[in-house]
């Protein structure tokens, strides 16, 4: 099957924040953190990949690198035939990143005005913007788009983050902990929406990160277990069961076996 994302040998080390002292070589040598270590994988169109891992495993970093917000130290990423770092502007049209950030909107504007602004940055003309916003508001059953953003609850803001992430109809959708802070019905609705509408109907490809095994089980086709920037295992549930040699294991048990975690 056609691969929409190919990640080859991605390595990323985090250094301490940039300062004038470090730039002039005056700062003491600092400890670096290995965020991603020689990561390679591919993902076919129309699949949902769930990235699981403890805090600091490198999940968000990986999403940000694919979306071109962070440059890797080494390696190459190809999305829909475009290389990160070389074809960023073209690549960005194919990618929608939804981060776990409430702050990333203009709180003194309405939800609709926010979407209108970001749609313009994605090159949608006035007519298409209006149509697309109405379509998304309808899809997400949002009737508060003309109220100011600072009056929204966390769940409402999350819906807007998702609408913004897909406003340009991207082929690859990257979701960082998509159901975090959502109540149970909203989380179920969101998962069903992504699974049924975006993936099954529109053949989009989704990569999401999560701490929740149940969510991942319900949602993903393929799982990646990540720890300290290294892939410990990747595949379907059956493939992972074979990999850990536990034919009846659930995802949680596989996760514990691979990460040697004491908790899930």
């Amino acid at each position: 099957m056609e691969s929409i994302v190919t990640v080859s040998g991605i390595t990323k080390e985090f250094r301490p924040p940039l300062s004038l002292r470090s730039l002039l070589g005056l700062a003491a040598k600092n400890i670096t953190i290995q965020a991603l270590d020689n990561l390679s994988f591919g993902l076919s169109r129309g699949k949902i990949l769930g990235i699981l891992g403890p805090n600091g495993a490198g999940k968000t970093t990986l999403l940000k690198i694919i979306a071109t917000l962070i440059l890797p130290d080494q390696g190459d990423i190809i999305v829909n035939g475009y290389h990160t770092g070389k074809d960023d502007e073209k690549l960005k049209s194919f990618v929608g990143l939804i981060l776990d950030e409430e702050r990333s909107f203009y709180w003194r504007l309405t939800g609709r005005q926010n979407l209108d602004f970001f749609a313009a940055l994605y090159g949608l003309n006035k007519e298409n913007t209006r149509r697309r916003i109405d379509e998304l508001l309808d899809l997400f059953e949002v009737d508060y788009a003309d109220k100011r953003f600072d009056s929204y609850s966390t769940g409402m803001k999350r819906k807007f983050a998702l609408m913004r992430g897909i406003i340009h109809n991207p082929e690859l959708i990257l979701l960082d902990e998509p159901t975090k802070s959502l109540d149970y019905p909203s989380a179920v609705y969101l998962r069903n929406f992504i699974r049924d509408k975006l993936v099954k109907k529109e053949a989009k490809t989704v990569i999401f990160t999560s701490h929740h095994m149940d969510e991942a089980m319900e949602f993903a086709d393929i799982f990646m277990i990540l720890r300290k920037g290294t892939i410990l295992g990747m595949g379907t549930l059956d493939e992972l069961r074979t990999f850990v040699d536990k034919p009846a294991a659930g995802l949680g048990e596989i996760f514990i076996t691979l990460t040697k975690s004491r908790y899930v």
Partner: protein
Amino acid sequence: MFRTAFAFLKKDFLVESSYRLSFLFNIFTVLVSVLSYFFIDRLFGQTIVSHLEEFGVNYFSYVLLAMAFFSYIGIGAGSFSSQIHNEQVQGTLEAILLSPAKIYTILFSMGLWNLINAAIEMALYIIFGVYLFHIDFSKINILSSGIIMLLSISSFNALGIISASFTLLFKRGNPFNWIVGTMEGLISGVYFPITILPDWLQFLAQFFPITYAIRAIELAVYRNYTIMQLQREITFLALFSLILAPLSLRIFSLSLKKARKYATLGQY
């Protein structure tokens, strides 16, 4: 490009107009500033008459025009940096940079609202000057003034882009903001003609485009100087623009790359 620029303009207008009192206070700030210099002129104006002979005006007329001009190009210079900082603080910078809009289009669009605001502020200075204090602008050489304005905007925007590069990388403690906002006020002739300064400060002033811009605009507006008479100032301003404009874009591009490498785009 126009759609992106218009989107930023609309967004900034909507955000700013939600703070209704802010605009009103801006008007009063300009008025208070003008009044302050009016009274300073009444107190000390006579003591610097000899330094103003070449401009043919009193201290108040000199400083009002310099303030009006500096408020425009100075704010323009700081606008890129302040907008980048605002977007970082609001958490929207990453969301903006996720879009496929070209980085230079984003940068230019970010500064637009502040430039328009600065133009309004400059107009307020002029309006107060003409209607409240009867300052005579009738000798203005429009062609010279226009060229000086364009060249000043170009070199100051370049300084502004360099300043924004620092903000992108180091967040605060921006040396360019300090140079443009503070140092240039002292040595470039905004608040008084630079002939008052000691020789070493006058020497230093030659390295700032604002020095040439202020002198040239004063002469073009109050003495009707032509382009030929302002040849030296216009040449220096053009040189600053030619060197700074491409340099600033290169520096910004490198800073953006560095911020992406250090994963600090959204940090502030």
